């Protein structure tokens, strides 16, 4: 539900504090043929292939969102630092409140994870974008790495304002009858319930290694899930797949659940529990 201004407005009205756009590139891109999304036992598997209308066509969507004063985090993807900086500049001009650099899409050749696994590139791209725009820059990183802390540190060195972790996990589903992978791209990214422990572990590790805020994402369905991420070191969370499991009202529900948990445990301010698991 990050396709256009209309869908993001609905999500905002449903209780989200801000919306992250789909990842936008320089040119329109159709993405992969279907099947691009399927449901598995414990999560959602997708390989969209970064479909997007291109930065020029996205101007109107941001303008529409800003009419309603909705905080917008513009997600962008590119293959080189100058591409990222052009996209970031446009996003800022259009009115985005922050930029998220997608350096973690696990299934698009030449983009995402292929860039985000190289600490030098992560640092270079982050610092180039930082020099281009005034709005905060977040770096979304992948769990499909053995050096996740190193990548997070590289983003911090590039002056990133925040780390977003995690993106989906590389995965595959084979149909037994047809003996073929179900997704058209064969490999996709897994999200939802199953990846929460992985996300929590990544956030915990990153928190041990950087001093910038972390936005936790991956398998958050309930207030307790969010609190687990807070305890691991996240100061905010993103919600995706839970929209399917609990409907558009998921944002309000999670906020209420967090408040109830805090009341029950006599926590006055959320900052009391951020990073609480690091002892």
């Amino acid at each position: 539900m990050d396709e256009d201004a209309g869908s993001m407005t609905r999500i905002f009205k449903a209780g989200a504090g801000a919306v992250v756009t789909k990842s936008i590139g320089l040119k329109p891109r159709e993405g992969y043929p279907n099947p691009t999304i399927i449901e598995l036992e414990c999560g959602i598997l997708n390989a969209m292939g970064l479909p997007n209308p291109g930065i020029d066509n996205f101007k109107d969507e941001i303008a529409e969102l800003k009419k309603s004063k909705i905080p917008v985090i513009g997600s962008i993807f590119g293959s080189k630092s100058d591409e990222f900086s052009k996209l970031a500049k446009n996003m800022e001009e259009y009115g985005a409140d922050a930029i998220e650099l997608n350096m973690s899409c696990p299934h698009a050749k030449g983009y995402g994870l292929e860039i985000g696994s190289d600490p030098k590139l992560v640092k270079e791209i982050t610092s180039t974008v930082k020099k281009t725009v005034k709005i905060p820059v977040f770096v979304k990183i992948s769990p499909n790495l053995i050096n996740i802390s190193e990548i997070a540190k590289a983003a911090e060195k590039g002056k990133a304002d925040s780390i977003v972790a995690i993106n989906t996990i590389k995965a595959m589903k084979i149909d037994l009858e047809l003996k073929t992978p179900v997704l058209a791209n064969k490999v996709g990214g897994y999200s939802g319930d199953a990846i929460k422990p992985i996300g929590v572990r990544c956030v915990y590790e990153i928190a041990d290694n950087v001093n910038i805020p972390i936005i936790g994402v991956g398998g958050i369905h309930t207030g307790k899930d969010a609190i687990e991420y807070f305890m691991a070191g996240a100061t905010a969370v993103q919600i995706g797949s839970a929209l399917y499991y609990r409907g558009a009202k998921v944002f309000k529900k999670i906020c209420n659940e967090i408040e109830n948990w805090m009341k029950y445990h006599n926590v006055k301010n959320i900052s009391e529990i951020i990073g609480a698991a690091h002892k």
Partner: protein
Amino acid sequence: MNFPKITTITETKNEAKNTKTIKFNFPGKIDPGQFFMIWIPNVDEIPMSVSFIDEKIKGVTFRKIGDATNALFNLKKGDKIGIRGPYGKGFKLNGKNILFVGGGTGISTITPAIEEAIKNKFSSNVILGVKTKNELFFEERIKKLGTNLFICTDDGSKGYKGFATKLAEEFINKNYYNSVITCGPEIMMKKLFDIFKRNDFQASLERYMKCGFGLCGQCCVGEGLRVCKEGPVFNRAKLKKIKDFGIYKRDASGRKIKL
């Protein structure tokens, strides 16, 4: 579970020029107007409204227009396809006097609704509009139901010469209908929406889809109304709020395309 279930094609039938029905095993309930995601392995997966509803067998009827429909067109009895669904909200038959208007392949979507109306002993008039007579299908099937059927062709090769909306306007001015139920080109449906002012107007919209289960947002219209979830059938109250209705749709990349 939103995962394609592999099933076997039990029957295929040519219905009109470049238009075919395929039937497959799919036990279970489905409402007229609801749709399946049909996976043609190694090609694509596309949404299609149900056109035949039997207890164990369901069918879809489509025209060859792109890679996916071309591939599906060439499949034979015994071939395997994947099915997910049924998805979305179908037609609700409220009124006792219903005008059905089907345009082009939209005929396939409204026909099961006509069958249900007849089963419920509702009086119904049916207008089918196609460009030319060899694109017409389901004529016999609908006639057999005992409903009043009127055919329109753009070129006058059969029935009334002109757009279905023109004939529908005459009917609406002359007769009393509780409801209008329609599926076809969106411009046609928008025109009907403007002509028929009563509340119970229901149109089935079509948009490029990916997940089919309300997560990805690809098919959103208006303020985040998902064609796959809140639609594909929308009533007047919803359609009123959809600024893009009859004006534009989005391609796979999300770019706006004029209708």
